[in-house]
């Protein structure tokens, strides 16, 4: 848990470039490469969160279909491809869990185009991913555990506290410390 494997397959810049090619010219070859990389990982993520295999497969399909349709709204200087696709999968999952019908994730303020931008550093968002994974691997086990439960087990911090038998304040401070370390890692000079 504490040492997630490094991402395999195409590097971040290549993956971002694939989305840009889809946006610019509806490039089906780029879509094929992107699908082959991300669809199995999105399915894997959904299975971790407890989705049934069929539902996970369908949501992975929906996620990549949304990538195709919304590619023009992707800004490679603000988010890594993996981050953008993560938010799409997350939003679809939330929409699916709503009882009162489904609606596309149009309301998500995190989709507003003003993430942490660094105009002088177009590759920043891409490099971030490697730094985050490296920083995750260096986190104390107790901090890595709460981050892992938050993102891989779909648990709000109140539930994490209940499951681990910890006071709420302890879980909140572990999350805060972990995020502070990740923030510092992101501010470090390039690897």
């Amino acid at each position, binding site marked *: 848990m504490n040492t*997630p*494997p490094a*991402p395999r397959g195409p590097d971040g810049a290549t993956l971002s470039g694939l989305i840009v090619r889809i946006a610019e010219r509806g490039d*089906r070859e780029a*879509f*094929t490469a992107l*699908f*082959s990389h991300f*669809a199995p*990982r*999105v*399915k*894997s*993520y959904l299975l*971790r969160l407890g989705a049934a295999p069929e539902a*996970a*497969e369908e949501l*992975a*399909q929906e996620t990549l*279909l949304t990538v195709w*349709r919304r590619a023009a709204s992707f800004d490679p200087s*603000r*988010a*890594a491809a*993996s*981050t*953008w*696709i*993560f*938010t799409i999968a997350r*939003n679809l*999952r*939330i929409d699916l*869990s709503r*009882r009162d019908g489904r*609606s596309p994730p*149009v*309301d998500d*303020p*995190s989709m507003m185009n*003003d*993430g*942490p931008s660094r105009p002088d550093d177009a590759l920043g968002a891409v490099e*971030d*991913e490697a730094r*985050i*994974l490296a920083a*995750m691997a260096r986190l104390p086990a107790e901090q890595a555990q709460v981050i*892992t439960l*938050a993102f*891989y087990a*779909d*648990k*709000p*911090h109140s539930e994490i506290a209940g499951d681990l038998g910890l006071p709420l304040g302890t*879980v909140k401070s572990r999350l805060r410390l972990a*995020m502070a370390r*990740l*923030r510092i890692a*992101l501010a470090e000079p390039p690897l």
Partner: protein
Amino acid sequence: MSASHHPAEALLVDYASGALRGGGRMVLSSHLMACPACRDSIARFEAVGGALLSALPPATLHKDALALALARIERPVPPAPATTGPIAGWITTPADVVRAARDRRRWAAPGVWVASVTRGPGRASTYLLGVAAGMTVPRHTHRGAEMVCVLKGAYVDDDVRHAPGDFAFNDDSVDHRPGITAEGDCVCLVFTEAPLVPRDWVGRLFQPLVGI
């Protein structure tokens, strides 16, 4: 205009991971739309989610998954649902909130209107609360968590002013009697895990009327 009361970082993590759903997510969304600083934090937490997604071992797809995807991208794009513009004078909110304000507003007491946005899970309730200038919401406490985002106007709670975009999280340790400032009417989006517990007879009288 930028907010001066923000959610705890753990709540932002819940938002980024997707664990925060329903009404609580709507209240936090409303704050995020008004708060670049918290949007920036969310973007970083989402980058953690993205990195963790990348690090997962790929699952096996159906053998015809790619062929199916390539066929689906050729299909026409379904029309986008009608967009609901923001309400003049309010900060931007999720579309569900705008619809509730337009379709489900009802007077609950003189100077007070409510509009139910969504109910559940369990006894949770999400509603808009509009209160006229100078009115005071009765003293009450909470059985569970309450999240509030000011959409318009301002209220003062324990001498602290909450203005548009400001976020508040109250739990059962809070026993308060917010007053609404006299600058004009105040509208809040409120999520409660359980009905409020009124603390005095005015509150008990008031609660059935408002239905919150």
